[in-house]
């Protein structure tokens, strides 16, 4: 049997190991962001690409891709939020614009943030937005309604098997989600 002192040393090391594991759990947070960027999964709000305002258009006229728009709000009844058109036929390499309608029903002035997501996730890198209301928080006065634009271009290098892209926005109101939890 080993000397009693070594129990303490080993226990200490194991406790340190447990503390390290706890820290590792939190280290997974930045690690996850890095891996998502590397793999470009499009799950994260930076998943879709921001392009320079002056993109060069080189339309591929013999190819048509359907772009669908989806809008959702986490708290039903707080917002009117919907795309003007639910789908568009686009040529890759050509710049298009679309509009979303939003109306604040929360009964107070709020700051809102739209969070985009794209499906299939692998097309995130080919879907470039030159302008989007999701780039910055949106201030809304009480009962204010507004049309919000996006301008986008689908990269001509889009893999040939993709004929449909779905772009989804969730509209969050920031003060409540950030300060009061849910």
């Amino acid at each position, binding site marked *: *049997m*080993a000397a*009693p002192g*070594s*129990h*303490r040393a*080993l*226990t200490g090391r*194991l*406790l340190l*190991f*447990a*503390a390290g*594991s*706890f*820290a*590792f*759990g*939190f280290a*997974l*947070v930045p690690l*996850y962001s890095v891996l*998502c960027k590397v*793999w*470009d*999964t*499009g*799950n*994260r*709000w930076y998943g879709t690409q921001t392009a320079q305002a002056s993109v060069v258009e080189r339309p591929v006229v013999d190819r048509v891709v359907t772009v669908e728009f989806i809008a959702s709000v*986490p708290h039903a009844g707080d917002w009117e939020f919907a795309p003007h058109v639910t789908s568009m036929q686009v040529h890759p390499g050509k710049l298009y614009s679309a509009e979303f309608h939003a109306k604040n029903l929360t009964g107070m002035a709020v700051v809102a*943030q739209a*969070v985009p997501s794209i*499906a299939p*996730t*692998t097309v995130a890198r080919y879907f470039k937005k030159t302008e989007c209301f999701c780039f910055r928080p949106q201030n809304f006065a009480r009962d204010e309604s507004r049309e919000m634009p996006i301008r986008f271009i689908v990269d001509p290098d889009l893999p040939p098997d993709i004929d449909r892209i779905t772009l989804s926005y*969730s509209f*969050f*109101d*920031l003060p409540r*989600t*950030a*300060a*009061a*939890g*849910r």
Partner: protein
Amino acid sequence: MAHADTHAADHHDHDHKPSGIGRWLFATNHKDIGTMYMVFALIMFFVGGAMALLIRLELFKPGMQFFDPGFYNSLVTSHALVMIFGGVMPAFVGLANWMIPLQIGAPDMALPRMNNYSFWILPFAFTLLISSFFTAGGGPAGGWTLYPPLSLQAGDSFPLTIFAIHMMGASSIMGAINVIVTIMNMRAPGMTLLKLPLFCWTWLITAYLLIAVMPVLAGAVTMLLTDHYFGTSFFNPAGGGDPVMYQHIFWFFGHPEVYILILPAFGVVSEIIPTFSRKPLFGYDAMVYATASIAFLSFIVWAHHMFTVGMPLSGQMFFMMSTMLIAVPTGVKVFNWTTTMWRGSLSFEPPMLFALAFLFLFTIGGFSGLMLAIAPADFQYQDTYFVVAHFHYVLVPGAVFAIMAGVYYWLPKWTGHMYSMSLAKWHFWLSTVSVNILFFPQHFLGLAGMPRRIPDYSTQFTDWNMVSSVGGFIFGFSQILFVVVIWQCVRGGEKATDKVWDGRMDGLEWTVSSPAPYHSFETAPEIH
């Protein structure tokens, strides 16, 4: 260290036990604590089992019969938490407490005081969890995985659940540290690591898994807590977080956790099969290395629980391949158990029966696991009853049967009495037949498309659900026999010999008297 002093003081008074409730409240004896763990696990097994029967009651036929969906979801969530953290894990810690010092020739566990804390945290943790049923909004209903944002929308049960999980985690980590220090520091002279009984080996590896991943779960639920109350946005897209990240962190814990639930079961079975085959275990070293490989692989397969969340093709390929790789060391184990029996002179006492049922039925669970590992097929199986059937096969006739096998194997050593073999065999046959009636049809339901976690279902699923419910009730009530057998055995019965079984008994635990003396090996035995 405190235990050294106690040990010296007790030297003249060999079997002196503290009396009254204090013996249990302030217990530092590994056998007393082991007993408390086992009894606690048994109670939780019945609490969780009662929840399961309520679930099967509601699912007996389509339509909403008894509960509102919210309460049904609470039942599903709590059933899982109670069975995993209150049933299977404490049962294995109880077996570890009882058997590890006896198997390695040590007087007690290395850290008796911590042992006491780690047990007594548990009743408080489960009181918190179960009391959450009485809060506004009912019990936790977002599934045991507590995925946000759903879990964050819970009522007042939310913080209670989180704190209960913190406490269970602390308890497991302390238990694990105790096991490691005991095995590393207190082995009898001459017992090298590769002479360690396999139950101790599997527990040693399990303990390292626990220390590596329970804190990660604690971290994940702490993030949920701060997201809910302190305005952080770990999992909240509005603040730049991502709910999918929770799933990654959770399953980084969750997959090693499923091996935490099964590795000690492998250990128990590896003790029992050689005994009743009257042959040494085939391929001892391979068993140790296979266990270690399974533990290592458990850290790199987590995303197979979440193939459908959207991940790059390369990620799906990696997690699919690494998951299938686990079949190799597991196959080694199943092969070695089978080979141990090959040309052995087998006898079928209750522990052996349960070990054999484990071997056969756990393998079925392993095969359905391989089916689920195939990423393209998993898109079809995800969140169906096929998954439910899979993990219940590995957990009920897997982990739970191994616990029962272990209890039937060592119970005479604990109590000093033999139990009723015929009642135990009734318990075995009723359990084994009914557990298949209960879970096998769930494979069919899942493949036919019945989703999990629903209180109502389409009428085409009715027949198999009825069969499954009938099996569930037979299985549930059969467990009363288990309690009867144990109760009779504690109360009295034919005197057990030191060797207990007419079989091949290699372990040190069979060299001490039955019942095992209150303090195990005061003089360390020599190992040759």
